[in-house]
C-alpha cells in the first residue's frame, strides 16, 4: 500500500476512534464520576444519530418517497443536527433518571439495557418514522464540498477532533468545579454527601443528562460520517459494550484514560478482523468478524481481573477551591 | 488448662487497627466475660478468634493448638462455635432447618442432639416448622444459641446474647448459659450488660480502646469500686 492509502486508512481509523472517545468521555461522566451503571449507551447513541439524521435530511418527495418512509425531514444544517441530537439525548435521560436513579445501581443497569433495546425496536418497527430496518441513507456530510471525496476523512477528522477537544476541556474544567466536587463526594460516600444537604438525586440526574448529551453528540457525528444509519447498528456490542471495554481499559474516572482506551480498543477492533481474515481457513471468512466478540469480551475480563483501575487509573483531582 | 489462649493479637478492618496487641486466656469449664464500652474491639476479638478476621500479628491457641487464622469451617470441626450478635439466624428457613444447618458439618447422627436442644429450649420445640424470621427476639436468640449447640461445641463464643431482650429474658438466657456450662461447655462471652454478665461468670476481662484494662475473677470485679464506677455504672 502506498503512503496515501495508509494515511487514509489511519485517518478513517482516527475518526472512528475519536467518535468513540467522545462516547467514552460520556460514559466517564456517568460511571467514572458518578458511579451510574449505564448499559444502554446504544440507546443514546441511536437517539443522537437518528435525531440528527431526521433534522438534516429533507423529507423524501417524488420518486424517492416510494422507497423511503420518513416522517420528519427538516433539512437543516449539520450543526443544527448535532445540537438537536444533544438536546434529544439529554431529554431522554430525564425520564430514565426519574424512574431509576432512586433504585439500586444494578437496577439502573438493567433498565438502561431494556431501554436501549426498546429504542432499537422502535426505530426498527415504526417504518413510517425513519424507514425501519433499511434505515436512512444519504445523510449530509458537512463541508464535503470543500475537498475531493478521497480527502474527506481528514476534513471530518478535523471536525471530530474539534468536538472532542471542546468536550474534553469542558469536562476537565467541570470536574474541578464545585459541581464536580459534589459529584465526586457522592461517588465516594452517598450517605455523607446527602447528610451535607446536597440533593444527591438532583446531582445524579444532572450527571446522567450531561453524559447523555455527550453521547448524543457522538451519535450525530457517527451518523454524518457513515452517511447512513440503520437500527441494526445500535447493538449491545457495537453501541454499548465496546465503550465499556474502552473506558475500563483506559482508566475509569480519568478523561485521558477514556480517550486512550477508545483508541486502543478501536485499534483492536478494526485490526483484529484484518489479521484474523488473513489467518482463517477458507469458508470461515464470514465468521472472522465475530472473533471481535471474543476479544473485546476477554479485554474486559482480563482488565478487571488484573488491573481494574485501567491503564491510567483515576486521577486525583485537586480543586481550585 | 486454658482451652483458649490469645497472645499479642493485633487485628482490625482494612487499614484500621482495632486490637493493639491483646493477650488473654479462658480456662476450660469456665464462663469468662469480656466487658467494656462500645467500640472497644470486643466483637473484633471474637471474629479474629473464630477466623472471620485474620490476626495481623499474634497467635490464637485452641486446646493447645495454634489456630491463628484458621477459617470457621475448620474451627467448627475442632469444637468451637460462634454466635454473632446480629443476623444470627436464617430467617427464611424454619426453626428445624436452622438447627439442621447448625449440624451441617457433623458426619454422625445429630438427631439425638436435636432433641436435646429442644429440651433445653422447649419454646422452640413447639414452633419447629415456623419460619425463623417470624420469631420474637427472645426466641430468635434461643434459636441462635441452639444452632451453635448442634455441634456439641467445647467452647462457645457468644457476642452480646442479651441484645435487644427484655430484662427477664436476659435472665432466662443467662440461666440457660449457666446450664450449658454445667454440662461442660466453656463459655467466652462478650456482654454489654456487664453487671449481669459478671454475676454468672467465673472470670472477666475489661477491654477498652483495643487494649486489656483489667482482669480478674468475677467476684473481685464486682467488688472493685473503680471497675464498678467505670464499667458497671455503679
Amino acid at each position, binding site marked *: 500500500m502506498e503512503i496515501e492509502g495508509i494515511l487514509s486508512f489511519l485517518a478513517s481509523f482516527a475518526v472512528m476512534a475519536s467518535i468513540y472517545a467522545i462516547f467514552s468521555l460520556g460514559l466517564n461522566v456517568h460511571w467514572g464520576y458518578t458511579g451510574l*451503571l449505564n*448499559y444502554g449507551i446504544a440507546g443514546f447513541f441511536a437517539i443522537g444519530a437518528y435525531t440528527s439524521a431526521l433534522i438534516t435530511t429533507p423529507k423524501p418527495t417524488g420518486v424517492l418517497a416510494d422507497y423511503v418512509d420518513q416522517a420528519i425531514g427538516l433539512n437543516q444544517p449539520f450543526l443544527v443536527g448535532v445540537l438537536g441530537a444533544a438536546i434529544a439525548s439529554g431529554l431522554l435521560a430525564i425520564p430514565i433518571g426519574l*424512574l431509576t436513579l432512586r*433504585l439500586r445501581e*444494578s*437496577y439502573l*443497569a*438493567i*433498565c438502561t*439495557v*431494556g*431501554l436501549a*433495546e*426498546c429504542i432499537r*425496536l*422502535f426505530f*426498527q*418497527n415504526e417504518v413510517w418514522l425513519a424507514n425501519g430496518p433499511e434505515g436512512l441513507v444519504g445523510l449530509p456530510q458537512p463541508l464535503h464540498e470543500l475537498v475531493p471525496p478521497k480527502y474527506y476523512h481528514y476534513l471530518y477528522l478535523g471536525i471530530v477532533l474539534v468536538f472532542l477537544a471542546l468536550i474534553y476541556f469542558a469536562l476537565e474544567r467541570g470536574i474541578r468545579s464545585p459541581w464536580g466536587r459534589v459529584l465526586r463526594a457522592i461517588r465516594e460516600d452517598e450517605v455523607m454527601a446527602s447528610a451535607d444537604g446536597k440533593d444527591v438525586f438532583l446531582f445524579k440526574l444532572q450527571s446522567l443528562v450531561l453524559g447523555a448529551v455527550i453521547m448524543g453528540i457522538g451519535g450525530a457525528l457517527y451518523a454524518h460520517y457513515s452517511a447512513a444509519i440503520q437500527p441494526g447498528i445500535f447493538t*449491545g456490542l457495537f453501541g454499548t*459494550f465496546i465503550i*465499556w*471495554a474502552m473506558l*475500563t481499559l483506559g482508566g475509569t474516572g480519568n478523561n485521558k484514560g477514556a480517550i486512550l482506551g477508545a483508541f486502543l480498543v478501536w485499534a483492536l477492533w478494526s485490526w483484529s478482523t484484518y489479521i484474523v481474515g488473513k489467518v482463517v481457513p477458507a469458508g470461515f471468512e*464470514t*465468521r472472522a468478524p*465475530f*472473533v*471481535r*466478540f*471474543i*476479544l*473485546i*469480551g*476477554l479485554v*474486559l*475480563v482480563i482488565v*478487571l*481481573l488484573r488491573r*481494574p483501575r485501567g491503564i491510567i487509573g483515576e486521577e486525583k483531582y485537586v480543586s481550585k477551591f | 488448662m486454658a482451652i483458649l489462649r490469645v497472645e499479642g493479637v493485633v487485628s482490625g478492618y482494612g487499614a484500621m487497627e482495632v486490637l493493639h496487641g491483646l493477650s488473654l486466656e479462658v480456662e476450660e469449664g469456665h464462663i469468662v466475660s469480656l466487658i467494656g464500652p462500645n467500640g472497644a474491639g470486643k466483637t473484633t476479638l471474637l471474629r479474629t478468634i473464630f477466623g*472471620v478476621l485474620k490476626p495481623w500479628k499474634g497467635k490464637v491457641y485452641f486446646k493447645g493448638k495454634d489456630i491463628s487464622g484458621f477459617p*470457621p*469451617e475448620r*474451627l*467448627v*470441626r475442632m469444637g468451637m462455635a*460462634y454466635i*454473632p450478635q446480629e*443476623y444470627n*439466624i*436464617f*430467617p*427464611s*428457613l424454619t426453626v428445624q*432447618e436452622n438447627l*439442621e*444447618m*447448625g449440624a*451441617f*458439618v457433623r458426619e454422625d447422627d445429630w438427631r439425638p442432639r436435636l432433641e436435646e436442644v429442644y429440651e433445653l429450649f422447649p419454646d422452640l420445640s413447639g414452633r419447629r416448622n415456623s419460619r425463623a424470621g417470624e420469631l420474637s427476639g427472645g426466641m430468635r436468640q434461643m434459636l441462635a444459641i441452639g444452632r451453635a449447640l448442634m*455441634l456439641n461445641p467445647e467452647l462457645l463464643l457468644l457476642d452480646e446474647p442479651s441484645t435487644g431482650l427484655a430484662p427477664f429474658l436476659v435472665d432466662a438466657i443467662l440461666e440457660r448459659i449457666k446450664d450449658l456450662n454445667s454440662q461442660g461447655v466453656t463459655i467466652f462471652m462478650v456482654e454489654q450488660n456487664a453487671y449481669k454478665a459478671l454475676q454468672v461468670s467465673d472470670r472477666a476481662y475489661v477491654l477498652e480502646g483495643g487494649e486489656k484494662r483489667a482482669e480478674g475473677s468475677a467476684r473481685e470485679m464486682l467488688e472493685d469500686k473503680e471497675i464498678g464506677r467505670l464499667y458497671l455504672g455503679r
Partner: protein
Amino acid sequence: MPELIVYGLVLGSIIALGTIGFTLSTKIADFCNYSHGDLMTVGAYIALLVSGTLLSGSGFLQGRIGPFSFGWGLLLSFLPAILVTAGLAILIDRLVYRPLRRLGAPSIHFDMVSLGIAFALRGVIYVIWGADYHFYFSGVRPMIYLPWGIKLRTDEIFIMAVAWALVALTYVFLGRTKVGKALRATADNPDLARVAGISTERMLTWCWGIVGALCAVSGILYGIETQLRPEMGWIFLLPLFAALVLGSIGSITGALVGGLVLGIAQQVSTAWMKPTYKPAVAFLVMILTLIFRPEGIFGRRR
C-alpha cells in the same frame, strides 16, 4: 385469547426455568450474571452438536419419537448439554469469579466481568456455527387440538412437561436435601452460613452447577420451541430480568410465578402489538414493578 394464554404458559415455563437459575445465582453469588442467557445458548448449541452432528449417522436416532418432532438423538443430547454447561459455569467461576472474590472486588465488577464473558461466549458460538439460524429438526410440526379452538404443538406439551418436572426437582432438591438447605441458608445469610461451617466456595460450586444445568435445559427447550441462533440467550435476558424483579430476588416460587406472568404477558400483548415488541412488553413489566413494588411480589421491604 385463551390460545394466547396457553402459548404464554409454554413460553412462561421456559422463562420460569431460566429465572429459577437466575434468582439462585443472583442471591448466592451476589451479583447479576449477564452471561446467564449465553449459558442457555451454549446448552442449546451443545445439544445441536450432539444430536445433529455427532449422532447424525445412526438413522434410528434421527427418526421421530411418537407424536413429537424430535428423535432419540435430541433426547440423548440433553445429558451432555447439561454436563458441559454445568461444567462450563463452574469453570468460569473458578477461573474468573473466584479470583475476583479473592481480590475483594465490589459486586459491580462481577456484573461487568459477566458482561464480558457473555460476549466472549457468544463470539465462540458465532465463530463455530455462524450467524444463521439452526434447527433441531425439520419438517412439519405435529399439532394437537384442544377445546376452545386451541391448537398446540405436541412439542410444546413436552416442553411444559420437562420444564415443570425440573421445577419440581428443584423444589425437592432445595427443600429436602442437605445441600439444598445449605444453599438456601447461604442465600439467606451468607455470613452466618460461613460461621456455621458451611463452605462458601463449595456452595458456589453447587450453585453454578445447578445454574448451568437449568440453563442448558431451558436453552434446549427454547430451541425446540423456536430456533437456534447465537443471540437467543441474550435476547432472553430482558424477560429474565423482568421475571426476576417481579418474583423477588431469591424466591424460587417468585421466579416461577414471575416467569409464567412474563410469558403470558408477552404472548397476550401480541393481540394488539406487533410480536417484535415482546421484549418491550417485558421491559414495561419490569419498569412497572420497579415503580410500584420494587421488592417484587414475594419480597419484603427492607
